[in-house]
């Protein structure tokens, strides 16, 4: 039997604050192969903290515990900070919502991609530059030479996000966690960025975790969807079976959206059952 790419068993993340403890993630379990997994839920439900714990990016005041947390069979709970950093930059990586905050504002696009490449691979500047150009080309940036010389603030939202994806994928990772990668983009640009991700995942046989608050978007993109509420997974669905969702929270999330193909006034609202958070 082959090991799954990612194994998460009973993961919890808690934060200690002066006025109490926040249990951000509570007993989350899932495995991931070379597939597209979606995590959806409302803000604060623990989606980002699940992804960050996997990468080892939990803030200092947070405590991570789990029965098992593994990447390609490597026990992440026992790995040293150095080993995790090495994994993070190369074999597993994360794309965030707003590239303007994730890119270095005082380095050109080219410098950043070249640096990311050379940090994980012995390569000359010239080779790294060639790889960077090819990568920009594969995220469908026209005139990559010109874009290499730009600073992050000179990029439009859609271009910034593609540069970010290029930078994250230049090390050929096996796992990509994309945290709301298109939420800051125009709807018409969104599809284009997602299609690039989709093609790269298929071509390279990567595992992808797509984190989003947009249930419809995740369901149309992923193979499987985890629905989170108050730090827990309340439901797991095959993406094509979204409309068979059983949990009242999932059904409520689907129902409360205004839709072009159904004009309902007033919109149904979520009636939160305190039992969902238990």
């Amino acid at each position: 039997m082959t090991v799954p790419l990612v194994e998460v068993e009973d993961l919890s993340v808690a934060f200690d604050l002066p006025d109490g403890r926040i249990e951000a993630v509570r007993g989350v379990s899932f495995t991931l192969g070379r597939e597209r997994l979606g995590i959806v839920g409302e803000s604060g439900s623990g989606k980002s903290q699940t992804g960050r714990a996997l990468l080892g990016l939990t803030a200092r005041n947070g405590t991570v515990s789990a029965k098992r947390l593994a990447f390609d069979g490597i026990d992440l709970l026992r790995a040293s900070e150095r080993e995790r950093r090495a994994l993070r930059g190369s074999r597993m990586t994360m794309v965030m919502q707003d590239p303007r905050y994730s890119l270095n504002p005082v380095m050109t696009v080219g410098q950043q991609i070249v640096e990311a490449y050379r940090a994980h691979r012995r390569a000359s500047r010239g080779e790294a530059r060639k790889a960077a150009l090819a990568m920009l080309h594969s995220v469908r940036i026209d005139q990559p030479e010109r874009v290499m010389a730009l600073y992050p603030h000179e990029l439009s939202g859609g271009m910034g996000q593609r540069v970010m994806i290029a930078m994250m994928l230049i090390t050929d990772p096996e796992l990509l966690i994309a945290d709301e990668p298109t939420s800051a983009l125009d709807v018409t640009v969104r599809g284009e960025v997602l299609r690039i991700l989709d093609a790269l995942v298929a071509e390279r046989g990567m595992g992808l975790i797509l984190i989003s608050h947009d249930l419809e978007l995740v369901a149309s993109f992923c193979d499987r969807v985890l629905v989170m509420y108050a730090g827990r997974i309340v439901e797991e669905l095959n993406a094509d079976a979204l409309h068979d969702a059983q949990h009242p929270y999932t059904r409520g999330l689907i129902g409360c959206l205004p839709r072009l193909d159904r004009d309902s006034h007033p919109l149904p609202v979520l009636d939160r059952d305190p039992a969902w958070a238990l």
Partner: protein
Amino acid sequence: MAEPLLAIDDLRVTFGVGRLHVAAVEGVSLRLGPGESLGLVGESGSGKSTVLRAITGLAPVAGGTIRLAGEPVRLPRGMDFYRTVQMVFQDPFASLHPRHTVDQILAEPLAIHRVADAEARIVAALAEVGLGPSYRFRYPHQLSGGQRQRVAIARALVLRPRLVLLDEPTSALDASVQAEILNLLETLRREFGLSYLLVSHDLAVVAHLCERLVVMRRGRVVEETTAEALRRGTVSEPYTRAMLTASKGFSRTPEPESG
């Protein structure tokens, strides 16, 4: 048609000079009747917010006219203007003073306009947006995103305006909270006969709240259509069509060229 509440003709707005010159709005015209709601959609940077800001006198108008109930608006906008027109922004956290209580936030416009009986008006305004009196002495950071947006709406309505300019009022909110705010906006509109000019990137939100909409691109209106036509899918501009396709979720085959 009855006299429009808002009539904009050939509006132009430019920022900066020389190399930094930006023509943000280049000849926009639109009409909004009393009690009607009009959507304003288009990609980011197309000039939607600038149109709203030009109406309120916050953006430099380089040409064209803005008339409110038949009268050209004056510069600076007078007190009477703000009794007729109010605005709600996308990010309720940024638009509410962080060190003012809800009570102070609602009292300010009432004091400026010397409205009698402020106390009763504040309590009533909170009730209208579904917040109990216990919220009166809270600070914005003690409220959820949805509650903050309710306070911003209460502040906009406390002077009983006829026209409310809404700039992405639900974009920062979770879907369930968005549903509550959309329902609230609909109820308030019916109750007080309000007109809305709504900016949103979400076509379903626009179709839910507005009868008509205007599609902007690069500072110009490229299409004027109805919610009905959006629902039927009978829009004519390729750009509007691309937005419509994109709003249906992810598809592995590319959308038709958006031009």
